Structure formats: C-alpha cells, structure tokens
C-alpha cells in the first residue's frame, strides 16, 4: 500500500459522517442513473422487439419504375431517385424475390403477406381491421407470432382455412374470444364468417388493435387482389444492418424496401429523446454528489492544513499530498459506484415488479426494464469523472499549500 493511500484510508476512516454523506450521494446518483436508463431503454427495447417480432426487420413492398424523363441522354446510375419513381401496388414475382434474397447471409427467413383493409363485425360491434394474409409456416419462421399467441391454438389456425387470428385489443373491441365467430366484409360488400382460432398479443398497440391474420389464399379471394403478396417480411441475423440491406434490395429488385429503423423512425426518436432527457436529469444527481464531495474534501483540506504541513516537513512530496486527496475521492467513487450498481440493479428489479396497465403505444401489465451492462459502465464513468473533478481542485489546493505558512503559525 502506498503511503498516500494509507493516509487517505486513515483520513476517511476518521471522518465517518462526511464519508457517509459523500458515499450516499454517489450511490444515489449511480443507482438512479441505472434505474432510469433501464426503464427508458426497457420500453424502447420492448417496442423494438415487438415491432421486429411482428413486422420483421425489413419489408419489401410496392414495385417501382423510373418515371419517363424527357432526356435524350439516359442516366448512368442504376439508382433511381425517389422523386422520379412511379409505384405499382403489390409485388410481382414474390417467390423469385424471396429465392434470391434468401442467398444473402443476413437473411434468416422471409414471408410473403397480402395486406388489405376491411371491416369486421361481431355481434353489434364493428371495427376497421388490417388483414394479413399469410403463409402460416413461413410467417411463423419469420416473426414471433408463435410466441404472441395469448389464447387459442396455432394448430387450429394452420389446419382450418376458415379461421383467423385476432389481435388482443381488437378482440376486446369486437368482444370476441377463441371459438367465437367474426365476420369480415369484402370489397364486394359481402360478409364472410371466420372462426377465431387464436388471440395474438404483440405488445404494440397499433398492431394489437387492428390486425387479423388469415390464410394467404383466403385473403386474396377476400381482398380481390390480382397479386399474391403486397409485401415481404424479412427476419435478419443483424437487424442493425437493415438500412444497408434495404438500399441494396431496392436497387436489386426495383421494389420499395424499408428497414425497421426507417419504418419506426418517429417512435425511435421519441424513445431516444426520453432516454437523453432522463440521462441528463439523473446526471445532475451525480453532479450534485460531486459537488458534495468537493465540499467535504475542501473542508478536509482546511481542517488538515497542520497535518499537510507536517507531512511535507517529513519529506512527502506535493504529488503525495495531492494523491492523498485524490485517493479519498477515488475510494468514494469506487465504493459508491459498486454499491450504486447493486442498488441500481435492485431498484430496476423492483421497478419491473410494479404493475402498470398500459394500453397505448405499448401494451404491458408491468414496467419494462432493460438489463444492459452499458448502463452500469456509463453510470460508473459519470461518477468517476464527477468525483475526479470534485477531488482534483481540493487535492491541488492541498498540494500547493506552503508548509512554512502553517508551521509559522506556531512560532516566528
């Protein structure tokens, strides 16, 4: 143990109240930071997981062609400017597109969907629904639909073409349960009856309140579409690389492609803003803790001027004196961070047990928290920086104290 560390430990041990005050500031700051980040990222992650699980990481939709431009010289690039595109509803040759896209290493699986809007009726209840005509086998490979089933049986759905899976909140609106019948109104103003095979709950309000899954062939008949798929959903190994792949698919297939980041940009920005706002607010707690440590160490320097002078007379260097106070700050930061991390984890766990009936953008019955080691690293880093700055000034002041001035106080 170095002499400054030894002396720092002794100084700390004899100022228990000040030590506890400083420690509690760091512990609270670190714990609150971790807990707030766990909550805000928890909801964001929940949303991302849910939306990826339901809508995939990437989708291909309408085919496009370059608009005819009155130019004698054709464009050299194959990239077609978005403003100069003409879109056509539906996907032509979906099977060929899926066959080619499966060759990409990032693609895990893909599934065609025929999407359309219909009216649904059950008893006296009516609702506008988004019909997803799917190939059950492919769709279950590509999405988390199997895990989203909150009631009923996927087996029934797969084996009965006249059955549907209804979103959980839509089921509440229509007042239907598994085994009930729901009527879907086709564009030809003809109602067709379907049995509710299962209820699905994705956790995303916009999906759960509108979506009905049925078999693709049934959907094509019901929606009277000339094409078999209006979009292709992709499950990717690395969803973070979705934007680059989307760009590549657009060029390759001449179909509009959108990554989940592009699709959910506004919601993701909202979560990011909330996270930053919470981080700034809680960082202030850590800064306040740093201010408390600054006060405590400054008072220590003032009360230990005599000791500092005597240490200097015994051969302790300026940097030794400085190290004594930096060590004190360092130990407060280290112990405070460690205890703060444990308190933060405990707080996050406690928060995740708080019941909350959320039925809006997200559907959840409990607070959602994310367990991410980076929250702990950031909290420790912030605490360390804050405490170092708070300790540096008193430490430097202590090192600069001329010992003769203090010693002269006793004799001239």
């Amino acid at each position, binding site marked *: 143990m170095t*002499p400054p560390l030894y002396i720092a430990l002794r100084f700390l041990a004899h100022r228990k109240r000040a030590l506890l005050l400083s420690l509690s500031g760091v512990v609270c700051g670190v714990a609150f930071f971790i807990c707030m980040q766990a909550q805000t990222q928890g909801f964001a992650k929940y949303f991302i997981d849910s939306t990826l699980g339901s809508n995939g990481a990437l989708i291909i939709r309408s085919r496009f062609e370059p608009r005819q431009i009155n130019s004698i010289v054709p464009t050299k690039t194959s990239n077609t400017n978005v403003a100069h595109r003409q879109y056509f509803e539906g996907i032509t040759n979906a099977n060929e597109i899926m066959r080619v896209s499966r060759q990409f290493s990032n693609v895990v699986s893909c599934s065609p969907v025929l999407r359309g809007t219909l009216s649904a009726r059950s008893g006296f209840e009516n609702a506008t629904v988004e019909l997803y005509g799917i190939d059950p086998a492919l769709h279950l490979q590509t999405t988390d639909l199997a895990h989203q089933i909150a009631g009923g049986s996927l087996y029934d759905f797969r084996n009965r073409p006249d059955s549907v899976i209804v979103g959980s909140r839509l089921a509440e609106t229509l007042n239907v349960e598994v085994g009930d019948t729901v009527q879907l109104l086709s564009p030809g103003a003809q109602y067709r009856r379907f049995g509710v095979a299962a209820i699905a709950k994705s956790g995303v309000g916009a999906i759960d309140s509108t979506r009905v899954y049925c078999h693709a062939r049934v959907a094509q008949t019901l929606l009277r579409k000339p094409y078999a798929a209006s979009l292709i959903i992709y499950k990717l190994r690395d969803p973070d690389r979705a934007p680059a792949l989307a760009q590549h698919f657009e060029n390759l297939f001449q179909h509009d492609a959108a990554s989940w980041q592009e699709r959910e940009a506004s919601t993701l920005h909202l979560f990011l803003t909330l996270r930053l706002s919470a981080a700034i607010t809680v960082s202030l707690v850590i800064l306040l803790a740093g201010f408390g440590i600054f006060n405590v160490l400054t008072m220590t320097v003032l009360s230990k001027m005599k000791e500092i002078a005597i240490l200097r007379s*015994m051969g302790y260097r300026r940097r030794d004196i400085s190290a004594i106070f930096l060590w004190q700050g360092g130990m407060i930061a280290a112990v405070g961070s460690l205890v703060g991390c444990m308190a933060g984890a405990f707080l996050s766990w406690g928060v995740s047990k708080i019941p909350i009936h959320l039925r809006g953008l997200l559907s959840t019955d409990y607070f959602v928290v994310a367990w991410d080691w980076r929250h702990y690293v950031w909290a420790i880093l912030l605490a360390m920086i804050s405490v170092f700055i708070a300790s540096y000034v008193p430490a430097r002041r202590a090192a600069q104290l001329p010992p003769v001035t203090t*010693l002269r106080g006793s004799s001239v």
Partner: protein
Amino acid sequence: MKPDAFLSCQDIERYLGEDESRVHALRGVSLEVEPGSVHAVVGPSGCGKSTLLYILGLLDHPDGGFVMLEAEAVSHLPDDQLARRRNEFIGFIFQFHFLMEDFTAQENVMIPMRRLGRLPETAMRDRAAGLLEAVGLSDKLQRASRHLSGGEQQRVAIARALANDPRVVLADEPTGNLDTKNSRRAFELLQSIVHQNQMAMLLVTHNPAIAEACDWIHEMQDGRIIASHSRGLG
C-alpha cells in the same frame, strides 16, 4: 567552510511579505553544523530564528545565498528532490509537536518510514516500537496521539524525527510547550541520542538553560547572527 559539516548555509538572505509589509528576515546568515554537535539559535522573537530553521530544513527557499547538505548545494533543487532529502537526512521537531491526531503513537512514528519505503511493514512497526521505547513510551504504542499528555506527545515527535535515522535534527523550540521537568527531560533525551549516533542538531530556543547546555550557541538579532560561541567559552 568545514568539509565535514552535515549542514551549512552561506550568506542566506530572505525577505518575507510583499510590498510595504516586506521584511528583510535574514541578512547574510552563514552557519555550519558538524556531526555530533548540538547548536542552539537564540534571540528575541521575530529575529529570524525560525525562518533560518525552515531554510536549513529545505522547507523554504532563500532569496540569496545557498544551503549545503553533506557538501552538496541543495537550494536550487526541484521540490521532489528537496522532499526526498528532507525525508532521508532531516528530522523535524516543532514546538506544538504537530502529531497526526487520528494516528496512534506508533503510526505517527511510522509516517516518515512509509515515505522512505526501505522497510517492510513489520520492520517499520518494530523500529517505531524501539524508538518509542527509547523515549519512554513503550506502554503507549497504540494510544491515539490526541490522548497523550503534552510531554508524551513531544516525545512521540522526537521519536518520529529520528525515524529515518536522519543526519540532522532541526528543532523549533522543542521544549517551548513543556514544563521545566519535561523540558529538561526531552532535551537531555535528544542530546544523548544526537551524541550517541553522531548526528547533528540545531535547535531554536528561548530557554537559556537549554541553550547553555548546547555545544554551540548562535545569537541572532534583526536577521543576523551577531555572535557564535561554543560551550564554556562564554
């Protein structure tokens, strides 16, 4: 200048304060301290005794002249080097002993040894215990220094000054805060250790009895040494 002097200074000038309050504290002071000798610096308050002591102890810089430690000019050395020499060669004793009040007597004595870093923990403890035993405090090793009497605290300070086996002990009125009995006892203890170990000691004192018992007496007035005489020469 004697070649065997442990500590010496030549033509030391020192100004204290600034502008109108500036005082010429030391005016061309020269002094030599040889091994095995005890020097007393006497004079009225404010004559520059303590200022001279701090400069000789490398705690303060002279404005003119130089200090030599074992024939090496040290006044110009950087702060780290000065600190190392203080730690290795010089032991300080102050009037108000300046112990670390949260530390035990033994821990106080170990503080300079820790900085020197030549002994392991157990050896440091043993040496501190030996030094405290030499000053008659073997039964109070673990007592917090703030719970010791004034005389005991000064004896701890003496033991601490001797911790790194210094060449020179500099004492600023080491008995000024003690009663006559403790004062005499502390001085005799210091004197015997200095003579026994062939160290050198320079002490600032107002006590004529102690000054008379030293090998050399230097009388200071207005920042100058006006007379130096060895014991018995008057």
